[in-house]
């Protein structure tokens, strides 16, 4: 299972763009990169998933360079409600095999007024 490294914490201000980078040097060919958001006392919430290049949805963008050894979650114009822990996970479901999404400590983002 590919190990991921991301900053423990980040601070930002309302209205700014926030970029959280995750390193996954030993990502496998079939692995997807998935990001989750978690608020206190709630379950992690799926934000975005990608395999290569760029993915964008209504919540965030995910940038993945060609070597796929890192990825960057981009949150445009954050608000106070974006204060949460953000997790980067890497892995895949092999045909007929099992996959255990494993959460690390994540990045604690605090958005200030």
């Amino acid at each position, binding site marked *: 299972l590919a190990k991921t490294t991301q900053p423990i914490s980040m601070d930002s201000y309302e209205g700014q763009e926030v970029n959280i980078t995750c390193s996954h040097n030993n990502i496998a060919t079939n692995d997807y990169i998935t990001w989750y958001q978690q608020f206190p006392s709630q379950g992690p919430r799926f934000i975005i998933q990608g395999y290569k290049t760029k993915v964008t949805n209504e919540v965030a963008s995910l940038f993945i360079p060609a070597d796929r050894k890192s990825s960057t979650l981009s949150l445009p114009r954050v608000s106070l409600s974006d204060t949460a822990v953000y997790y980067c996970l890497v892995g895949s479901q092999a045909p007929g095999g099992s996959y*255990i999404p494993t959460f690390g400590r994540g990045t604690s983002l605090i958005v200030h007024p």
Partner: protein
Amino acid sequence: EPEVTQTPSHQVTQMGQEVILRCVPISNHLYFYWYRQILGQKVEFLVSFYNNEISEKSEIFDDQFSVERPDGSNFTLKIRSTKLEDSAMYFCARRGPTGELFFGEGSRLTVL
């Protein structure tokens, strides 16, 4: 709207008592996970359940834990004899086509 509904939202129990936590998927899915999160700690994998059988389980998932899908819809996690250290949030999740997880809102278990 959550992908899965969990009940109860909060349960307080005495040490040694049995607890059953329930997970109800919104639609028919085959692959589910249970995770737990002790206050201030990481989200930890407990067990995965595929097509009515345990697929994988962690070291945490010892003999006092069990999972089943008794009626083909509800998916339960049972803790036979609770300990103080079982106090945590317990999350059920269903898996999407590329391994992404969709979590329920969780059940908070407090063991006194």
